[in-house]
């Protein structure tokens, strides 16, 4: 039990009369990479919003590293080690790529305001360290040469990568990726799959990824599980092959074939 890094139990949320998430349970071991798929409106993003407490659940439990994170503020949840990217990119467009990443290190270094103003060696050392770490992250996502560009001036694909670097800067243990490949072509998808796999293995993150590109999901989750949501409920859980051959899943995505007699 205590081994699980994330344990979601019977999570339900109602928006007015609509049950957006219905009795969903998800459990993740540390280091796992699971996919979360489903047709539009299945409640995938809502689950991520529930984990980061942007939305309050109607009932259910969310435990992270053995402690309940329900009702904790988003910044506290971030500090506990959960970070995310967004389906529609939400960078700070007026700030540089570097500043976007630097912000993620915000909660970490401890030095006082006075130290920052006088620029004591201690404060300066932390600043230099932060700078180094931020540049390393930008290098991982291949954005080092764009570090001083405004986030809004970067092309779409690079903004997605920058968002990933920013999420990594908060040193998360659980990373939530919301459609990282949205709007990308096949070549870009392949690069992204490589990048995500590299991040997953080198950083030892536990990752939940929402994605509509089936190639991307099937490729990245080939050694683990995919959760399929439909209309707020869990429809199926299993390996990519199991999911691809699951009649319920096929029906949810493609609709039912009319029976002929």
């Amino acid at each position: 039990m205590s081994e699980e890094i994330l344990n979601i139990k019977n999570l339900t949320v109602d928006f007015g009369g609509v049950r957006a998430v219905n009795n969903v349970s998800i459990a993740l071991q540390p280091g796992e990479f699971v996919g979360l798929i489903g047709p539009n409106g299945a409640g995938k993003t809502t689950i991520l919003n529930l984990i980061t407490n942007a939305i309050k659940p109607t009932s259910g439990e969310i435990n992270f590293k053995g402690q309940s994170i329900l009702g904790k503020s988003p910044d506290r949840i971030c500090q506990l080690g959960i970070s995310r990217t967004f389906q529609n990119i939400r960078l700070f467009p007026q700030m540089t790529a570097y500043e976007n990443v630097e912000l993620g290190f915000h909660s970490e270094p401890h030095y006082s305001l006075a130290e920052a103003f006088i620029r004591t060696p201690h404060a300066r050392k932390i600043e230099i360290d932060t700078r180094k770490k931020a540049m390393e992250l930008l290098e991982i996502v291949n954005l080092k040469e764009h570090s001083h560009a405004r986030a809004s001036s970067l092309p779409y694909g690079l903004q997605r990568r920058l968002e990933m670097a920013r999420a990594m800067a908060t040193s998360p243990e659980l990373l939530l990726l919301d459609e990282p490949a949205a709007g990308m072509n096949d070549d870009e998808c392949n690069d992204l799959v490589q990048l995500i796999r590299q991040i997953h293995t080198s950083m030892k993150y536990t990752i939940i990824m929402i994605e509509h590109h089936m190639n991307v999901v099937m490729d990245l989750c080939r050694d683990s599980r995919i959760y399929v949501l439909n209309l707020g409920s869990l429809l199926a859980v299993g390996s990519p092959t199991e999911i691809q051959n699951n009649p319920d899943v096929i029906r949810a995505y493609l609709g039912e074939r009319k029976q002929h007699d």
Partner: protein
Amino acid sequence: MELFIQQLVSGISIGAIYSLLAVGYALVYSVYNFTNWAFDGFMAFGAFMAFTGITSLFMPFWLAALLSIVLTVILSVGTEKLAYNPLRVRKAPRLFMMISAMGVNLATVNIINLIYGGTFRKFPVDNLQPIFIKGVSIGRMDLMAGGISFGVLALLWIFLYRTKWGLGIRASSIDILTASLMGINNNAVAMIVFAITGVLSSVAGVFYGIKYAVFPMMGVVTIKAMIASIVGGLGSLPAAIVGSMILGILETLVSGYISSTYRDLFSFLFLIIILLFFPNGLMGKSSDEKL
């Protein structure tokens, strides 16, 4: 020529005081998208606290100024906690925050009026002799007000652009929810922002009190800071400073060459003309660059 230079120096010092107020408005506006009308009362409060420190507690000027800053910061942060924070937590429309701010302002000004009465008082500082440079007389108070105001603004600039707290506040001004998902504590940001506005209003109140007089309605001058920040471009700090300097210099030149009676007429006329040609203010890029 002497008159021009004298008026220019005086204008810069008045502009510097307006800058403090305009920056206070712009800071709150950029993060929380509402006009903090309570600022007006805080300024009078700051001036009266320094006044009381000197007259009743027999403090030296610097100590009284410090007392005023501390108390105004407490008032400003307390207002945030009691009046704005509950509204923000309940996701109230920003109009409600503005109305709440007006209420705080009315309460502050009237409490001051009840305690001290509505008379104009001279701020109790020694009559400082002006300095004469080549026949041009320059008020020491103008130099001090200008110098200290710019010093405060410079510290604020360093804080916002050179420290991690500043980075957090700038991020919050762009997207407060995403900032909190990146680990930035919204309540801490609010406390810092309102503490800064407390400092700004107190310093502005003390200098304005020295330059003119101390009275409960003295905060009405913040309307000039509003004009200045609109002329510059609402919600942007550099624009607020530029707008304030232009307005301050314009006002003293009008007072010097035309008549001080028409000073405010020209200020508002100036606002109308600027808005006709620059609807977003001189440096306003609508909502793009805020801090």
